[in-house]
């Protein structure tokens, strides 16, 4: 009896907390469909008049498509680089005989201790000196460099769990190391790669500090920075417009989230278990 009542009480608590997480988003959605006047009067209720003006205005003054394209380029570029080069490094460290393997592993772990924000300043100077500020490469390479550590460490753990027989079989079939790696080993670790894809996507798509500092030209801004700048330009007067811009900017992530939530959950929590 008591157990059941307790369980129901906890359930209610969890539902309320869940609402606490969802409600702000719902509120913003609401806001973006209200006219300015109606918003100031009844901030909570559902809109009496569903206005799409905010969204049309947003399309005109908010460069959503440009930012979206840029975010896509940065994310895809970083993803490909990290997966390609990072997995090769992880493979080398875990399966090849190299005197410096252990040192290299600890070295890469440094990347987890050094947060991005620390080297913002010299990175800024470096990128300018190399003449790649405000180019796609100029942001992709630093993002790639900082995303390496987590990926290499996780793939390293995964590689180590593979049986040695795999390479032996490939060797007997006459493969050289490159063929065996790309044709046999890589396909086997697809789940780990999928996990990394999700993680890297989340990290780069929502990245703010580096993008903010390294990209100053409007045409190259990713979504996060574009939204922030839009907000600072419009000021706090037209919240409906801002709400619309925010919802638009969140749509891609929400769609990915809705369609792959279980994979996302697995990816996000994988780090905890593999330790």
């Amino acid at each position: 009896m008591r157990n059941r009542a307790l369980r129901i009480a906890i359930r209610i608590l969890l539902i309320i907390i869940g609402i606490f997480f969802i409600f702000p988003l719902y509120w913003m959605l609401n806001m973006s469909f209200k006219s300015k006047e109606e918003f100031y009067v009844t901030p909570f209720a559902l809109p009496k008049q569903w206005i799409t003006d905010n969204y049309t205005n947003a399309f005109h003054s908010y460069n959503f498509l440009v930012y979206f394209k840029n975010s896509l380029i940065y994310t895809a570029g970083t993803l490909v680089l990290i997966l390609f080069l990072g997995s090769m490094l992880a493979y080398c460290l875990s399966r090849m005989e190299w005197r410096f393997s252990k040192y290299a592993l600890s070295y890469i772990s440094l990347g987890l201790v050094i947060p991005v924000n620390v080297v913002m300043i010299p990175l800024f100077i470096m990128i300018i000196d190399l003449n790649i500020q405000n180019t796609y490469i100029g942001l992709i390479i630093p993002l790639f460099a900082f995303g390496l550590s987590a990926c290499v460490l996780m793939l390293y753990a995964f590689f180590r769990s593979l049986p040695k027989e795999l390479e032996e079989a490939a060797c007997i079939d006459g493969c050289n190391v490159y063929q065996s790696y790309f044709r046999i080993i890589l396909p086997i670790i697809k789940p780990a790669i999928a996990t990394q894809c999700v993680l890297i996507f989340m990290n780069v798509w929502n990245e703010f500090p580096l993008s903010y500092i390294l990209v100053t030209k409007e045409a190259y801004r990713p979504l996060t920075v574009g939204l922030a700048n839009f907000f600072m330009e419009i000021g706090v007067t037209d919240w409906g417009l801002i709400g619309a811009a925010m919802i638009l900017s969140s749509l891609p992530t929400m769609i990915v989230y809705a369609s792959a939530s279980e994979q996302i959950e697995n990816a996000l929590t994988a780090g905890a278990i593999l330790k």
Partner: protein
Amino acid sequence: MTRFFSTNTSIFIFAFPALFIFTAFVVYPLFPELVISFQKHNGFSSQGFVGFENYNEIFSSKSFWKANTNTFIIVLLSTAVGLPISLLLAFLLDSQTNGTRRYFKAAGMLPAILSVTVIAQMWMAIYEPQWGLLNSLLRAIGLESLTQQWLTDRGIVIFSVAVAFLWQYIGLNTLLFYTGLKSIPKTYYEAALMDGAGPVKSALMITIPLLQEVIKFVLVISILGSMGMFAHVEVMTGGGPGYFSRTIVYELYYKAFMSSEFGVGSAVAVIYVLQCILITLVLNRFVAREKIEF
């Protein structure tokens, strides 16, 4: 077999590109940063060495100490308040049905996948004194006296920003803890039950020690993450009012990119990275030292 594969060329090709870029863009920049912290620098060229002047300037500046205190408050809140809440929620989640679990997981993950800008702006709207969600809610239930100027009151502003940050990650941390919880074999609990242990005791004596690795992992990312808080401050308050909601990274950014004092900014960065390294070392030394197996 491995000998056959591990030719010098193949090792080079596999390992070098990643290691090179990593060194060039993550490790190497630390050195110019150290150097610049001893110079007067405007972002384009150095204007000569000034010894410890930059460091003296920071240590005697009120904004730096406020930034440090703020960062400390945020780290404290997210670990001493956020983590226990997440852990508790994970325990509670364990006792629920699949339906409730799925609902909570989905709801909890949502804040973590939104971009920082969206979250910062969302909370600005919530904190708006006139019609914001929070004050309106308080007025609606008759607690008008509790309404505040959440983002412009000097005493509260850092807590307001901290709550936005916490909101984003509590759900995710709960999920992480819950995943760790699930991996503990049920047999331990059954044995404890037979010995007469109640839920609290078994939680304390079995779950938490076995969760050590996960707790350490979450602790590390929580602390390092909250220490690096920058985006929320920049969008929500711009460090204001005045400098009262600056964090250490914001101070770094401000000194370098807004005051064009790259030397001072670099000095702040050096102090910041030393703090990070210190914390990582301390955590590694004192938390989850031995592997516990039953």
